[in-house]
């Protein structure tokens, strides 16, 4: 099991999301659970009105997550780097141009929340590179 991006990074990410002034404005309707899979390591992000209320590592099958994002660690590492290369600088860019970055599950739910979800994914980048 990989350590990437690591517990301290995930904690920083959660704190950043929950303190984000923009999500406080646009996050009211973002109540869902989605998964982030870094290589083999899967995490369920439980969101209530734009705030992350729980992060579940290696969720079991009774954790219901309508959608998620999965990619090899090398892809996530580029996305989270301080100077991301073109095509790796945005999750919509990766969905179009990086075949290893995939959306899993019901993409309709994801796109219904596109604005707040996009903000949440961009906060991943603003959290800084893991293991920096």
């Amino acid at each position, binding site marked *: 099991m990989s350590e990437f991006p690591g517990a301290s990074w995930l904690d920083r990410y959660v704190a950043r999301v929950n303190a984000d002034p923009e999500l406080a404005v646009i996050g009211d309707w973002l109540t869902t659970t989605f998964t982030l899979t870094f290589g083999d390591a899967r995490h369920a992000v439980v969101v209530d009105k734009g705030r992350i209320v729980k992060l579940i590592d290696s969720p079991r099958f009774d954790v219901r997550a309508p959608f998620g994002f999965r990619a090899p660690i090398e892809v996530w590492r580029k996305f989270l780097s301080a100077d991301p290369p073109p095509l790796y600088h*945005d999750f919509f860019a990766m969905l179009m141009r990086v075949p290893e970055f995939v959306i899993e599950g019901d993409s309709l739910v994801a796109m219904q929340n596109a604005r707040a979800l996009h903000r949440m994914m961009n906060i991943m980048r603003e959290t800084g590179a893991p293991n920096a």
Partner: protein
Amino acid sequence: MPEFEDITGRYLTVGIGGEQHRLFIEEAGRGIPLLCLHTAGNDSRQFRHVMNDKDVTDRFRVVAFDMPYHGRSTPPDKWWLKKPRLTTKLYLEIIRAVWTALGLERPVVMGCSMGGAIVLKVAADYQNEIRGIVGLESSAHAPGRYNDFLHHPAIHGGELCASYTYGLNSPYSPEQSRRENWWYYSQSGPGVYQGDVHFYSNDWDARDDIKSIDTGRCKVALLTGEFDYSCTPAMTEQVAAAIKGSRYTMMKRMGHFPMIENYPDFRPYLLDALDHVAS
């Protein structure tokens, strides 16, 4: 006295394909006509910095218009009975109708994204009537952007289209400018952006047409942002390779919307391109 900008906006009714279209047209400056074409699902506000740049407007009459269904242009009668679907043929008719109605003589035609695509066809078909083209983010064939969610009753179209295009900006462009473009995208009518992407990703293929462009008659300057993933630098390189005598420059740390996402960094590239096509 209020400090108005030097841009003047007016409305003009133009016949296109047997229909009357009331179009919004704004302009600034005097000199060589520079007709500007906005991106899919957006409007002429994207060119506000170009129209407020004295170094441009001292030499060029900059004209930008909102495409039918876009911005402040009114959709044609019976719009509710058909889906907005832009095609290569219709797009060319619209441009030609505006250019003729305004009496623009030997204009330079500049467009971005879908506008950067169609200027290639304008150059191919009207190379004896224009000075040249400035293609921003120009591709001769750009599949992959069309999807059903862009117009879907269970999805807020404005927020999706704006978010879907937000990442096309470079991460290095000023946030205020990227957000401004997000706002313009969010204001598009239902299905309008999707209808434009139908042209851009489904209908558009000018890979043969561009081979006929004679840069001795019609100058071609191509500018593409390093971070553009809709029209990648490699896609514009293919266009440049097919047009002998064309000039292509990749803009470092720039995205898909240079004229609105980061005008200060775009400006030197633009002035250089305009020098080239107007010479």
